[in-house]
């Protein structure tokens, strides 16, 4: 197990996105988006500046290469890549009066969704006749800020996690843009803004992230009560077939990624990823920690216990303890992990995830 670590300054990273071939990395930090060329060492290629407040989210569409960014300045921008490697920004009319918090392309890349503090989700699509990105709002029954959105593989259903402690599943079907989707377990006929599911965690708390399983037939949510909830719906208008809640002894998770139908990795305020395994039949449980701080602590104590090391420390610092280590965490990330994303897939299972954190590090974990 070797995890790739890239320290890219000390400014917190709110979101990141790799291009489809993993040759470019976009980081949302402060008021701009930085594009890095990847390789053994990441090097800054371009800085996209167009926002005038904190950029909250960035997403690169895998096929078209377009980048969508959104910011606390209430705007979203679509950056079109040009042949010479430059990017041309287009403003999107979001029509919201609070910060935009989260933006994601739909899997078919015809639409993107922007969550916001204005108790609304803007579903944006390109209108050919006006040559302009326009948006439609999903408002009801959102009662507070939307913290995350995530798409169903059919590009019509969207899950949204909110600070009103609900995770909801909406239809974003737009006539003329989408083809009528196949019926799913979430609903057969789904006009725009249909609420297809509404879930909470038993102990409540903000829903930091919610995501569909690879098949789209289950939804997982991480909430501020340090728990993860996995919901298996049974059909439209029916109570769910199974709702599994795993409450942990850790600090709350901010983000999650499904590795396969039976594995989820989540990370957050405890600065290291954790893997959960299970199914609707057997229930779910915490399986193991990736980059476990307890292992690191054990190694650290065995290192300190060697006599040579002790005398070296006494010589250098005047104390037998390695005081330089005291300030740093035993994990790779030195602060909250803000975002996990799938990085590599092998045999239908995600085996590498990329993470970014408040510490300004980008890490690619083997999971």
């Amino acid at each position, binding site marked *: 197990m070797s995890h790739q670590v890239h320290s890219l300054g000390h400014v917190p990273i709110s979101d990141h996105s790799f291009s489809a071939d993993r040759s470019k990395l976009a980081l949302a930090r402060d008021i701009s988006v930085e594009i890095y060329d990847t390789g053994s060492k990441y090097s800054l290629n371009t800085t996209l500046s167009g926002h005038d407040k904190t950029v909250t989210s960035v997403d690169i569409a895998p096929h078209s290469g377009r980048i969508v960014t959104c910011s606390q300045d209430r705007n979203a921008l679509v950056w079109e890549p040009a042949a010479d490697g430059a990017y041309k920004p287009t403003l999107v009319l979001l029509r919201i009066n609070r910060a935009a918090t989260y933006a994601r392309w739909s899997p078919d890349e015809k639409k993107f969704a922007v969550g916001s503090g204005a108790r609304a989700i803007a579903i944006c699509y390109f209108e050919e006749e006006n040559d302009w990105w326009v948006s439609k709002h999903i408002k009801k029954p959102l*009662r507070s800020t939307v913290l995350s959105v995530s798409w169903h593989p059919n590009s019509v259903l969207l899950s949204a996690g909110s600070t009103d402690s609900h995770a909801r599943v909406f239809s974003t079907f737009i006539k003329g843009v989408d083809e009528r989707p196949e019926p799913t377990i979430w609903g057969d006929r789904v006009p725009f803004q249909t609420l297809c599911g509404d879930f909470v965690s038993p102990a409540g708390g903000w829903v930091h992230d919610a995501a569909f399983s690879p098949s789209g037939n289950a939804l997982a949510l991480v909430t*501020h009560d*340090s*728990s993860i909830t996995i919901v298996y719906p049974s059909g439209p208008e029916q109570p769910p077939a199974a709702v599994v809640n795993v409450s942990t002894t850790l600090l*709350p998770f901010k983000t999650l990624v499904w590795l396969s139908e039976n594995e989820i990795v989540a990370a957050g305020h405890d600065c290291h990823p954790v893997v959960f395994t299970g199914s609707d039949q057997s229930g779910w449980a915490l399986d193991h920690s990736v980059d476990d701080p307890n292992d690191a602590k054990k190694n650290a104590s065995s290192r300190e216990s060697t006599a040579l090391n002790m005398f070296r420390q006494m010589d250098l610092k005047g104390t037998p303890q390695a005081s330089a280590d005291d300030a740093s965490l035993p994990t790779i990330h030195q602060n909250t992990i803000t975002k996990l994303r799938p990085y590599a897939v092998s045999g239908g299972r995600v085996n590498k995830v990329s993470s970014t954190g408040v510490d300004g590090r980008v890490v690619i974990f083997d999971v």
Partner: protein
Amino acid sequence: MAVDFRRIDIDALDPENSVEPEHLIPPSIANLPPLSVPEIQSIGQSIRGSLSRGDNYGALQAALDQPPYTSSEEIKNIHLATVLEILSTIKSSDMSRVVEKLSSEQRDTLIKYLYKGMSVPESHGISGVLLAWFEKVTEVAGLGPIVRHLSDRRTV
């Protein structure tokens, strides 16, 4: 400018803002009926009964399994007194063993009662006991129960 505009609650002026207290009740307890004073007293009595028979663990379990989430503050305080009585009865040497036997939900509820207990003047005599309990619970269950106490709207 005489008016401090930063202190104006702009959400109160928004006609679409519609968060009512009933929206904040978690669905899991929406159908839980509030208890009356005689009901909570009889629950307290049966718990004290098992306490006097020496079944400390059973008494604690019974008290933590049915907290009066939807009842009035008065009822909640009666149940708090029952829980505090159990906690001060159990010997400090038994604490770890009892905490290890509790389920994860029971530990979460216990942390809620410890916080509530430390916030009322009646517990000043036993705050040392409450801190000892707090230490034992976090040793076993980590920081999760504290985070859940902060996020949970099912208050005790």
